[in-house]
């Protein structure tokens, strides 16, 4: 299997090896080893939680820099609708569109416009006979990857239609090719302006297969100050935004669902809430649903790790901005979903959690894990470098760490030692410990407790 490419990176110098990200990672993908965080790429779903919570700013999103704007002769910007909620005191979205042109983009195609198309296609798709319900939105790449790793039974429920980012890229490329017959196709660069890390990974891993049309992914945060600078100088925008209420609504949770025009939907956000919803859906716990919208970030895309504004403030701004806009000006006229907007093949189960390919070996390991875990304190303190005692037991059995990393057991052993050597002072005990561990290093190994 091809190695999964991620978009979260670590600045080892800044990482203190604290347990903040360790405890917040929803897939237990992080361990602290040699004093700093390490991400297991098989388990990482690029949700960006660790970037958001890191108190030392050691976790960073990797994305394309603004210098890549010189990579292509003709540049197309695809702003995600969350971008519109980032600016204070902005009267109209037209200023952002105009600002993007002034930054050097030759054409701007709003992802919100493509989202209106996807909303229309979703309504068509939901009405098709034999569709497996509830249909789960394909828009959030964290959720689709989460389903691939942990909810294989639900992978057929993911809507097989391309997400707005990809529909936008395809339409923008077509239009550009038409508008600029003088430019060869490989000179056209499609730049997605992203609110989150997961979209970066989505593009890097070519999730859309042959239909992947995005060339570069820029961070909303990088573009923010550049845009403010140019927007300040705009008197009257020459270019206008063309998306409507439905498209802009996709930036926050509930927007995509309400555009389905069907009451039988559920919309949830925050990765932990989404996981709980998926658990219950998998158990057939509530069956009367047609559509499920899940967004890994709090508040929806406005809560992405590469945004600037507080997600709820951004959402409030969007409410004002979209108030007098038409409902869905980009709604397509087709009566069926065009073939080119269907995904080539459904996402495949990726058994990132598997202990061993050999069932017998996996069972042996599991028994050992259970037995070790029953001896551990169960505090889930994280000092050993694993998020929970159970995860620590797994790591021991997988030979990724060893049992003496448990500081609670170590403390008990220390007290026990002091009890047996009542006449010894603390200083003596340390001296004794040091000389013994030096001996161990020399090779005269004692068995570990």
């Amino acid at each position, binding site marked *: 299997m091809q190695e999964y490419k991620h978009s979260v990176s670590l600045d080892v110098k800044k990482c203190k090896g604290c347990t903040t990200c360790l405890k917040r990672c929803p897939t237990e993908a992080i361990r602290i080893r040699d004093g700093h965080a390490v991400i297991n790429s098989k388990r990482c779903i690029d949700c960006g939680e660790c970037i958001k919570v890191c108190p030392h700013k050691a976790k960073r999103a990797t994305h394309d820099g603004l210098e890549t704007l010189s990579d292509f002769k003709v540049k197309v910007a695809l702003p995600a609708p969350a971008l519109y909620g980032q600016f204070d005191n902005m009267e109209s979205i037209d200023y952002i569109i105009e600002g993007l042109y002034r930054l050097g983009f030759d054409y701007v195609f709003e992802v919100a416009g493509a989202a209106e198309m996807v909303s229309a296609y979703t309504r068509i798709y939901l009405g098709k006979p034999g569709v497996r319900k509830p249909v789960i939105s394909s828009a959030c790449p964290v959720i689709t990857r989460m389903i691939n790793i942990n909810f294989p039974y639900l992978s057929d429920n993911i809507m097989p239609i391309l997400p707005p980012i990809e529909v936008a890229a395809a339409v923008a490329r077509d239009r550009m090719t038409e508008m600029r017959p003088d430019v060869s196709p490989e000179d056209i660069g499609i730049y997605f302006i992203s609110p989150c890390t997961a979209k970066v990974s989505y593009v890097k891993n070519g999730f859309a297969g042959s239909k992947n049309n995005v060339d570069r992914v820029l961070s909303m945060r990088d573009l923010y100050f550049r845009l403010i600078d140019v927007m300040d100088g705009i008197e009257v925008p020459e270019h206008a935004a063309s998306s409507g209420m439905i498209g802009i609504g996709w930036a926050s949770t509930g927007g995509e669902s309400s555009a389905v025009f069907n009451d039988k939907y559920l919309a949830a956000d925050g990765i932990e809430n989404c996981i709980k919803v998926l658990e219950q859906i998998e*158990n057939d716990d509530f069956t009367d649903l047609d559509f499920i919208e899940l967004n890994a970030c709090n508040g929806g895309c406005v809560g992405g790790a590469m945004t600037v504004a507080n997600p709820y403030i951004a959402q409030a701004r969007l409410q004002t901005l979209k108030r007098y806009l038409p409902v869905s000006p980009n709604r397509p006229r087709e009566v069926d979903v065009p073939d080119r907007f269907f995904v080539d093949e459904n996402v495949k189960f990726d058994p990132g959690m598997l202990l061993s390919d050999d069932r017998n070996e*996996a069972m042996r390991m*599991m028994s050992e894990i259970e037995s070790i875990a029953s001896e551990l304190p169960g505090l889930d303190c994280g000092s050993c470098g694993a998020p929970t005692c159970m995860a620590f037991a797994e790591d021991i059995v997988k030979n990724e760490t060893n049992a003496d990393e448990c500081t609670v057991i170590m403390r008990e052993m220390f007290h026990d030692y002091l009890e047996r050597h009542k006449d010894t002072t603390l200083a003596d005990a340390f001296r004794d410990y040091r000389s013994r561990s030096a001996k161990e290093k020399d090779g005269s190994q004692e068995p570990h407790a």
Partner: protein
Amino acid sequence: MAENVVFHFDVDGEDFSSAGGASVTVKKKLRQLGIAPEYIRRVAIAMYEGEINMVIHANGGSADVIVSDDEIKIVLTDTGPGIPDVSLAMQEGYSTARDNIRSLGFGAGMGLPNMKKYTDTMEIDTELGRGTTITMTVKIA
């Protein structure tokens, strides 16, 4: 032939909000063992229903899951009131849950029928005033 793997859970009778927790943990464990998704789902549903039943009717109990080469066995044991009429309890929609439980969306009378539906074998051993033990198996390939 691998040795059986055994998981044991105490199901807390006081707490509705944590009911179903053992089922979630078992799902994760079975994934780690590489059990096929369809089997995992059936085990998870049967366990979930069983856990909810123990919380509603028996003030909790315990759940044991035994994974062997060819099957997954689930044993749910409680010391609750017992089931007076098993064949009645097995009917879809028959429920003795109180209204406050139903208002939470539970007690629809689908617990035992679903447990039977999603497993290959199910045995109910119940005695009034003493408790109930339900043993279910899901055959795995």
